[in-house]
């Protein structure tokens, strides 16, 4: 037995409420982050990721309160991302009870933030989220670049080079989302997952495109991912965490049961 591959459900939180709906969990209020987190904990999730998509900065403080509540009741690792711009934001989230914070756009605009934050709180707390798109034409050697603002803004930065740089800057883990696959349900972009995973020593979480359980297996076995993140297949009850783990185990992947 060795280290288990992790399954991480990801929840979008807007002004303190889970959005997009979470239907499978037997809970009264599917918008309450604490209830949802508790449900996923009971279901056997290995970690939970909250992505704060609150647009208005006025409502940002509600996220700290949400994290405090969840951390008071749910005793598995909690990652929080969205809107982190300074080391003080990182510290506040950790103090509220987050175990890791995920930095995305701010890392692109200010890579030193990753360095500064990992120096202060330790690499194991710093996840760098990378939104990547394939930019090569069919038939060409595949090439990927990172995008910000939900995949709308190109940066011209090569995904693999960026991943290596973020690892050097002290990221403890990379959350790699394929913007081409996000929401498509046709599976992870195995090419970029494998390329990033091979290029760095730190763990890589694959994200974007999961529609069926075989995709989770492919992300690990073909993409070399250390963890797989999914939202809709779990939220809408298509599959439970338990089913996903049982399937992965059948395919020879070590999971925590």
């Amino acid at each position: 037995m060795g280290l288990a591959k992790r399954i991480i459900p990801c929840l979008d939180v807007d002004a303190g409420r889970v959005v997009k709906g979470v239907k499978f969990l037997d809970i009264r209020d599917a918008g309450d982050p604490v209830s949802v987190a508790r449900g996923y904990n009971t279901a056997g999730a290995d970690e939970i990721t909250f992505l704060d998509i609150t647009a208005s900065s006025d409502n940002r403080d509600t996220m700290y309160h949400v994290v405090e509540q969840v951390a008071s009741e749910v005793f598995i690792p909690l990652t929080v991302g969205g809107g982190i711009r300074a080391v003080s934001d990182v510290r506040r989230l950790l103090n509220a009870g987050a175990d890791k914070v995920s930095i995305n756009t701010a890392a692109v605009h200010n890579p030193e933030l990753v360095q500064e934050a990992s120096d202060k709180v330790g690499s194991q707390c710093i996840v760098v989220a990378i939104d990547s798109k394939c930019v090569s034409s069919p038939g060409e050697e595949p090439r990927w670049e990172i995008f910000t603002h939900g995949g709308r803004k190109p940066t011209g930065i090569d995904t693999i080079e960026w991943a290596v740089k973020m690892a050097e800057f002290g990221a403890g883990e990379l959350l790699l989302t394929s913007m081409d696959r996000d929401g498509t349900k046709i599976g992870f972009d195995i090419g970029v997952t494998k390329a990033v995973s091979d290029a760095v020593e730190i763990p890589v979480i694959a994200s974007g495109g999961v529609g069926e359980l075989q995709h989770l297996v492919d992300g690990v076995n073909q993409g070399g991912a250390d963890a797989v993140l999914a939202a809709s297949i779990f939220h809408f009850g298509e599959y439970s965490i338990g089913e996903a783990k049982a399937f992965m185990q059948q395919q020879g992947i070590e999971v925590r049961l």
Partner: protein
Amino acid sequence: MQRIAVIDYGMGNLRSVSKAIECVADNAEVLVTSDAKLISTADRIVCPGQGAAADCMAALNDANLINTVQELIGTRPFLGICMGLQVLLTHSEENDGIDCMNVVPGQVKRFASPLLDTSGQRLKVPHMGWSPVAHSVAHPLWDNIADKARFYFAHSYYCAPDDQGSVVGQCEYGIEFAVAIAGQQLFACQFHPEKSAKDGLQLLRNFVAWNGKS
């Protein structure tokens, strides 16, 4: 009612630790504090910690807590978690080398790079996620926890105590290494019981009920 002090030296996720203890200790007051007097009058002490070794040692020093911790270990049940284990050793390789508290003689070392498993596959560092913990010996803090139950880890450095007799739990990740050490009134672990779901809470429950003997 017993009092449990969670040492607050400005490093790490103290809320999770204190809430997890409150969750399993009905009849206890859990104090998150940096006050040496409150710490030394508590019935039990928990020393969590995250971040870099040098920062943790500096923070403990700034809070004038190094002597307090050194003197209190052995006098009442003490639980070290993650960096709260590593700072107990003699020296850490982190931050180009830093002297630690030398309560448990030994070294804190970085995982090799590249780190390979027995079949030659590369392993990622940090060691992050759920790994099985083998009980090297029976211990009251393993009560009602299965041998090789999985606990949550997040670390790049590991402890190599001089005295293998102090090791009560081990893990294999590229190498076999100590993940739990114990002594008189002392238990310290590399993994995070406060983040290890049911088994982690059980370990904390065992600590809260522990008489300090092995």
